[in-house]
């Protein structure tokens, strides 16, 4: 008997919503901090670095959960191009969640900045000091951040479409709350 999940596992849902808050905050902090010279600048930078590392750690845990639990199937009647886009977006999200903090960390390393998280807590340098490497990573961090925000907007639009237009259970698969309203379907 094959058990098909209709919802993501509870730890997956928890991580999804926790990371949604973290990542959206992170993107707003990022564009906000590079556009101000007020003392908010330092506060935002001080949040940006440890939050980035937190996202990296959470993303790796989430990837492990994903490999362990898998994901519920998409609605069978979803057109193939949409299914493809949905699956592709998952890869893009994982790639961004893991690469963005690493790029930021590498960028700081290449610029010979100490990577300070809190007070005396600092991370080792992961790349040699290099202006060209710094420039490459800085540009990547910058443009991927905007791409990340764009992908998130599309993700939100898509899930609202699933919920409000199709009402096909895709939103419920990741919705918070206990699962007794959504019994697992057994095929």
């Amino acid at each position, binding site marked *: 008997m094959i058990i098909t999940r209709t919802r993501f596992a509870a730890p997956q849902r928890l991580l999804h919503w926790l990371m949604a808050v973290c990542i959206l905050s992170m993107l*707003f902090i990022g564009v906000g901090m590079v556009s*101000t010279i007020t003392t908010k*600048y*330092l506060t935002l930078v001080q949040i940006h670095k440890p939050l980035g590392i937190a996202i990296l750690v959470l993303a790796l845990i989430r990837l492990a959960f994903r490999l362990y639990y898998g994901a519920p199937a998409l609605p069978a009647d979803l057109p193939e191009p949409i299914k493809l886009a949905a699956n592709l977006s998952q890869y893009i999200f994982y790639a961004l969640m893991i690469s963005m903090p690493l790029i930021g960390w590498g960028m700081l390393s290449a610029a010979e900045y100490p990577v300070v998280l809190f007070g005396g807590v600092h991370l080792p340098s992961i790349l040699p000091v290099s202006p060209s490497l710094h420039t490459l990573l*800085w540009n990547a961090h910058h443009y991927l951040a905007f791409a990340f925000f764009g992908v998130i*907007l599309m993700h939100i639009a898509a899930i609202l479409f699933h919920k409000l237009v199709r*009402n096909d259970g895709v939103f419920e698969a990741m919705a918070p709350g206990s699962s007794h309203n959504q019994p697992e379907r057994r095929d």
Partner: protein
Amino acid sequence: MVQSPASSKDFRLWPFVVIAAVIGIAAIGFAYTAGWLSPNRLTPKKLVAGLAPPGGPALGHRRNHAKGICFTGTFEANGEGSALSKAPVFVRGQYPIVGRFNLGTPNPNAEDAMVRTRGLGISITTPDGQVWRSSMINAPIFPVSTPQAFYDLLTASGSKDRDAMKNFIAANPEFLTFLPWAKSDQWTESYAEEPYNSLNSFLFVDESGAKHAIRWSLIPAAQPVSISPGELAKRGPDYLEQEITQRVAAGPQHWNLIVTVANPGDPTADPNKAWPVDRRTVNVGTMTVQQIEPEPDGPCRDINYDPTVLPAGITTSDDPFPAARSAAYSRSYNSRTAEEADYPRTATGAKQ
């Protein structure tokens, strides 16, 4: 539960309105946060652009304090600073410094005698990997009280309007207290004879967690020898770099690091306001400059002397400048490292 999707027959408009509204609000919020909807916001980009000479910045170089020379040396802490700050850099011992003597100009080819402000950047690393960076200048106070006033000063001094400076001074009378120093002809003949002042106040945090508002200065061991700008001009456009190279080759140069502790009520948020001279000072150690290295190959070239790179035990205060400087220095750093081709290292490639 999986439900059957809505058919095209019962098309409803409102879900699409909701989707457009949600995405639109998020995008507008993002644009606002990025400053795209606030043309008057003073951004790092504007501040750094304000520093550039009319012909544009010198590519590959720092956007200010562009002319400089690297040094390596040590900071020898005498342990006295530990009463004020738990930073490991104040624990008795010797810690390596990578530093840079420089001139307060956006022009890397400026003649020494044309630049009143001389600066010093230092980066001290302790064995646990903590880094303390500081950029100081030889002026006793900063020209203005706020970052916005500094931007206005840059704008006014670059303006073609004859009344621009007059209007600036009317709006920022604190600038007048800086002028006597700026116009004084008591210059020194060496980078080694200059005091270098943090100007900005910071907080030292001691072992008990108590915070002390402080400023610091590096006071030279060398006796200052006065020279007029005219006399300095005769010695050559790059005299200071030649002089410091020869001087350090002949023997290490020393500065005492003097920390001044504010009394309650002292103006910690305004680097234009000197603290009364009777304030407690603590000599926390000695900086020794041991070797001078030209900048193109030198270890200081690719360091951002961001004054907010601080070890645990030192934090920023209510002084608004370190944040503004950090934001602007970061912008400058990102620009100049991206222009590496315009400021190539010399062929010897001393630093890999």
